[in-house]
């Protein structure tokens, strides 16, 4: 196919996804036929879109398309290049998987209001695709705003809960701050270049100070979207509160758009400075380590997963920072490895995080809770879900041979290349690598914690004890995503496509030989590791069967193992780590401890781990702003005479000026 064909195919695929949003309204009864039709439309859009994107990515196609030039804010220019194709992949794949999961998870018969959610999810998918395909300020900002607004209705879909309404409100504030930054960014570009086109030639005229300001605005606007520390404050609430198949899209596809924005803008801005890369490295390192650490303190399964998303976006941002540093200091090797690591890690995250949100949804559906301290023992009752979640948890903890490892390893390789290859380098690189090492160890603890609290040991509540395995309709998307996690672990075939992206990001770069040799070992090593593990596991279980395997009580220090309440809970498992970093985490105990009287009354105690930026940063800031700006409100509700006076004054000023 030609580039125009691929672009048209991708637009058609987005159209099909949008059409699915209309199709859900076809039947009025709770039959669910329309939901199946919408799912089929989304899936066909996903397949078509994936085909076009992969084709465009492998062949490195790029092309543009101008739809109309009559808008006051510039032409509707669309276009695609390997950077767009790379980020279109999750935008097509995740909503497709999520639609299949939604058929069983959010069946129309049980959720009659789900049609509204489905429509907004379709709008979200289509608008995310348009953001990535935009080549001018007008389509970009329009698609961005559509994405933000539909994202709000998706995140706040279950608005019966006041906590979710509040989280949705916080999301909306963050989304509009982000839009504001981007509007300012495009205004700045228009003022300096006279055009709103997103192209390298248009940007080349930008003076150095304006380029620096544009970088900072992009970092704030897109960093808010990607959930980089400290701009992540909206993320945990929004992702935890949404229904699980919606959380999968929010975290597996929408966060990537923020990183896409950072990569796109930094590809276009002329003469990148070393401090840009250092900024991005520092923000990424803080998000990665912070996300891993905050996730350990959460007792809600989905909040913990949301913080893990922040962690992985931080890793991808670090990789982008390394690439930017390489571009500023003239090291093509850092650029190639950095861009490849950033894109690969986004892909990886878009596989294992939807998988884990699906798993969390299946668990919540089976037990009615997502509190880590109320689950347990599900591995026996939901073995397939447990296995899929174990793959997701292993990938999230960057364990070989799964895909999460390859992404982080590419970043390590880039950092090591910087360490070994150049005599002098900014201190940000070794500091970021240290943060990455710390993040990896904490992420392992987080993965073990989630897997153990949900699936291992005994059921802690009756509901968890009565759980049954998820139906095939829920397991299928999980199995597909888990298969993807294993398949991308052997990343040698990805060297070519990743090289195309890096070469698009920095023209003139030759990335393929470097990435080819770097990734060549991953396929044989992953296959060997899988074979070795399978062989040892099969061999040892066969031997166990032969020698005899008896069941007995769990041994607990001379006693038979205690009941379900004596097990180590998720809170206990991470307690010493949380205490070690208590100064950062600020976990507090709330409730009434049992009295010291002879017959103590009922007591309740709860460990609360709020988001520190939201609670100690943003909320006080907003309260203060509200107090200051509140003085203006008296003017807003004043008399007609005052309004008239103000209008006359404005008119006079405008006439005189």
């Amino acid at each position, binding site marked *: 196919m030609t580039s125009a064909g691929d672009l048209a195919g991708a637009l058609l695929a987005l159209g099909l996804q949008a059409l699915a949003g209309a199709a859900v309204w076809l039947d009025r009864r709770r039959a669910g036929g329309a939901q199946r039709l919408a799912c089929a439309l989304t899936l066909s859009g996903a397949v078509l879109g994936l085909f076009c994107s992969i084709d465009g990515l492998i062949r490195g196609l790029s092309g543009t398309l101008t739809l109309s030039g009559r808008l006051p804010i510039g032409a509707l220019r669309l276009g695609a290049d390997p950077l767009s194709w790379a980020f279109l992949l999750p935008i097509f794949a995740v909503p497709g998987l999520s639609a299949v999961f939604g058929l069983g998870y959010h069946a129309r018969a049980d959720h009659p209001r789900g049609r509204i959610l489905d429509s907004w999810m379709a709008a979200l998918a289509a608008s995310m695709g348009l953001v990535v395909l935009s080549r001018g300020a007008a389509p970009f900002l329009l698609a961005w705003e559509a994405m933000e607004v539909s994202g709000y209705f998706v995140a706040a879909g279950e608005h019966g809960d006041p906590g979710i309404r509040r989280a949705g409100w916080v999301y909306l504030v963050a989304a509009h701050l982000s839009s504001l930054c981007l509007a300012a960014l495009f205004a700045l570009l228009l003022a300096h270049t006279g055009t709103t086109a997103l192209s390298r030639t248009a940007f080349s005229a930008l003076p150095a100070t304006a380029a620096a300001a544009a970088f900072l605005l992009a970092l704030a606007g897109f960093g808010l979207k990607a959930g980089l520390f400290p701009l992540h404050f909206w993320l945990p609430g929004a992702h935890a509160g949404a229904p699980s198949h919606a959380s999968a899209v929010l975290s597996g596809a929408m966060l990537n758009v923020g990183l896409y924005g950072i990569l796109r803008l930094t590809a276009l801005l002329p003469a990148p400075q070393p401090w840009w890369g250092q900024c991005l490295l520092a923000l990424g390192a803080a998000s990665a380590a912070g996300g891993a650490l905050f996730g350990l303190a959460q007792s809600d399964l989905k909040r913990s997963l949301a913080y893990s998303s922040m962690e992985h976006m931080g890793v991808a941002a670090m990789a982008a920072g390394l690439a930017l540093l390489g571009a500023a200091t003239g090291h093509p090797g850092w650029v190639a490895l950095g861009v490849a690591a950033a894109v690969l890690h986004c892909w990886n995250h878009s596989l294992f995080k939807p998988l884990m949100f699906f798993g969390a949804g299946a668990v919540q559906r089976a037990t009615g809770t997502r509190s880590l301290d109320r689950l347990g023992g599900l591995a026996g009752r939901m073995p397939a879900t447990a296995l899929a979640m174990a793959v997701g948890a292993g990938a999230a903890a960057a364990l070989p041979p799964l895909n999460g490892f390859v992404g982080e390893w590419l970043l390590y390789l880039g950092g090591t290349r910087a360490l070994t290859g150049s005599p002098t380098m900014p201190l940000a690189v070794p500091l970021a690598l240290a943060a990455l090492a710390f993040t990896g160890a904490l992420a392992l603890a987080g993965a073990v914690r989630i897997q153990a609290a949900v699936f291992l040991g005994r059921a802690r509540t009756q509901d968890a004890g009565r759980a049954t395995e998820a139906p095939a309709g829920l397991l299928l998307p999980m199995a597909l995503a888990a298969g993807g996690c294993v398949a991308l672990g052997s990343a040698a075939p990805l060297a070519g496509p990743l090289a195309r992206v890096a070469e698009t990001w920095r023209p003139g770069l030759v990335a393929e030989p470097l990435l080819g040799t770097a990734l060549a070992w991953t396929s044989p090593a992953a296959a060997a590791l899988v074979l070795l593990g399978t062989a040892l596991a099969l061999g*040892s279980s066969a031997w166990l069967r032969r020698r005899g395997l008896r069941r007995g009580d*769990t041994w607990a220090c001379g006693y038979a193992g205690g009941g379900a309440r004596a097990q180590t809970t998720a809170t206990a498992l991470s307690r010493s780590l949380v205490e070690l970093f208590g100064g950062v985490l600020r976990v507090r105990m709330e409730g009434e401890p049992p009295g010291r009287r002879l017959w103590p009354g009922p007591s309740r105690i709860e460990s609360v781990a709020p988001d520190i930026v939201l609670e100690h940063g943003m909320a006080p800031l907003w309260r203060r702003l509200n107090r200051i700006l509140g003085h203006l409100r008296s003017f807003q509700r004043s008399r007609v005479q005052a309004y008239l006076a103000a209008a006359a004054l404005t008119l006079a000023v405008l006439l005189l000026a």
Partner: protein
Amino acid sequence: MAPLPIADTAALLVAAPLTPGLINRVKAFFAGRRGPGAFQLYHDLAKLWRKDAVVGSTTTWVFQLGPALGLAATLAAALLLPLGPRPGPAGFAGDFVAFAALIAVGRFFTTLTALDTGSAFGGMGAARELTLSSLAEPALLLSLLALARISGSPRLGGLLEAGTRAAGGGAALALAAGALFVVLLAENCRLPVDDPQTHLELTMVHEAMLLDHGGPLLALALYASALRLTLFAALLARMLLPGPCPPAGPRVALAAGVAGVALAVGVLESALARWSLRRVPVLLLWACLLAGFSLLLALA
């Protein structure tokens, strides 16, 4: 013709249970006891392997497969380690990160296996292991990064020879070696972090996770931990060996080095008491700082 690198790895796999045996000999000598023989672990493994296993009634497939999968990861890590004069059987650029990650895979399965029993002790051991390793793993990676900077090589085969290539990097090398030694103690649950010989469950770290293992499952777990100890000892010995190969050949030198590390651990364990669990993170933080300073010195 020189033997293939895989032959060195096979020799290491066979000799691995000897390392804890050597440490126990040294400790017995200092305590004035007769103590178990150096080959005791071989006898234990052979006995355990032939027994049947009792598993907890709450356990699932995780418990039955965990020890084998953990051992598979440790074996894969062994394949990455260069032992002879040539790089390891599976060396590649950035393999030191894969080495650390494979050790982490082993930890993933050990902790999950412990938590699958639903025992409070298994959970306690896993919680301690995860806490300590969250500081030990950065120290390991940072010291390997420092070695990579000193040697200019991104492969284990090159970076472990930092000592021969460094011009004036002696201080950085010493700091990295100190950090690696602390990591060895922490990752293998030796004193002062954990007492491998304790019988008091409340104070255990690694042993608490193995409380419910029996028969072949315990044999797999014990062999994996002996292998991990030997891997770390070989890593440290390989790094500290003098540059030009001694006349006896690099393999004998490496074996002597591993024995030397075992001797050092044995002497240390005879002289030290176990530290309070609250103080251990401070020790590991020191290891991180040592590794960090080593990297800083190497950067200068």
